[in-house]
């Protein structure tokens, strides 16, 4: 079971106030987590990564253990602390700037 933190607007979409707990089968990669998240909450399909291309949307970021995983390949294994549920994986709306 991994811990997942969504940005405010996506938490509202799935009706969740705090962290999500997510069961992910197979190797714990970034791609596997996103697959499991979208399977559990189909409303999130297209909101984190694009339909069709499955590319990360430009203003979405993936953080874990103080590292930015946004540009890592989706096959990248998640850090041990995330796999063990000690640290959450953060899906973040990028800073707006301005």
């Amino acid at each position, binding site marked *: 079971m991994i811990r997942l933190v969504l940005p405010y*607007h996506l938490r509202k979409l799935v009706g969740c106030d705090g962290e999500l707990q997510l069961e992910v089968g197979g190797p714990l990669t970034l791609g596997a987590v996103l697959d499991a998240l979208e399977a559990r909450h*189909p409303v999130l399909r297209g909101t984190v990564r694009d339909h069709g291309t499955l590319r990360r*949307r430009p203003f979405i970021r993936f953080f874990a253990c103080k590292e930015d995983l946004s540009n890592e390949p989706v096959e990248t294994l998640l850090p041990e602390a995330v796999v063990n549920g000690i640290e959450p994986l953060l899906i973040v709306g990028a800073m707006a700037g301005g």
Partner: protein
Amino acid sequence: MSKVRVLVGTKKGAFILTADGTRKNWEVSGPHFAGWEMYHLKGSPVDPNRIFASQTSGWFGQLIQRSDDGGKTWEPPGGDKTPAPGEFPTGASNKFVYEGEVGTHKWYDGTQHPWEFKRIWHLEPSLTDPDTVYAGAEDAALFKTTDGGKSWKELPGLRGAKGHLWQPGAGGMGLHTIVLDPSDPKRIYIAISAAGAFRTDDGGITWRPINRGLKSPYELPDPDAEVGHCVHRIAMHRARPGVLYMQKHWDIMRSDNAGELWSEVSGNLPSDFGFPIDVHAHEPETIYVVPIKSDSEHFPPDGKLRVYRSRTGGNEWEPLTRGLPQQDCYVNVLRDAMAVDSMDPCGVYFGTTGGQVYASADNGDSWTAIVRDLPAVLSVEVQTLP
């Protein structure tokens, strides 16, 4: 007594304003989808309690929401149901994927650029089927659902109408206007920013530009080009589906032959730049526009917010000012932010980028603000309910 429900999309959520037939005392509900850009909400003419909404965000992309109880509760069509073990999720209500080869359009530097979906600007429910809705997208394309919004399919013939020559303007290459012909279910008109107006006569399979008579001497190297005109809005009266009115970037235009040829009817307007145009519910020759100073200064001339009405189908215009600010007003009124109800006398409504929604219960003769401090208004639609 009849009721009126005004659906307001803003930069930071949706609002629903309701009143009885006197249209004096209003209840405000919202924000719905707080913090999201609500580009457009529109109810089904067949089932007015069914309302579709375009919910969009630069961060999180596009969602489509649907209410089946007049806007009290909402859900993405198809629901956010947890799939049973072994079942693949079917939620695709926000899946807008261009058909076939994505293709390219003209880019700012003159090269060809692939189509990229950004958002839905406009939703147009069918006049006859509550499960059928058309959706206008940026980058410009027309999508259609026949299952109440659970899934969407592009009508790719539109992009075949010289799509490789379409070039986005500063506001994006959005398909913002969809007009369904009540007398011919196979005829649809659409308009696209910086590309022009197009018509299908076969239900959306094939399309052709209908821009003859439009002149864009300041925007295009060839002022009479077949595509490339910046059409801002097209309006039609149900009783005369062959008569179309257009607010172009500059110029108010009129066609009496389903868009085959347009002629200018700007007449005595103080400026013929603007965004919305609409037609009186019971008088097919009575039309409304909101003149804006220029494309460089997107606010009303002289700081005076004036709706102009023509009772002659154009050319002769009168300012409607009673109840509207006549000094220091520098708001804009966007293309999808004007609508009429079908009460008698006809009600006219519009929203501003300053967050006001103005209503007139007397054909535009006088106005009151229903609300004054909403986020910038992107769209206004009205439902007249029994």
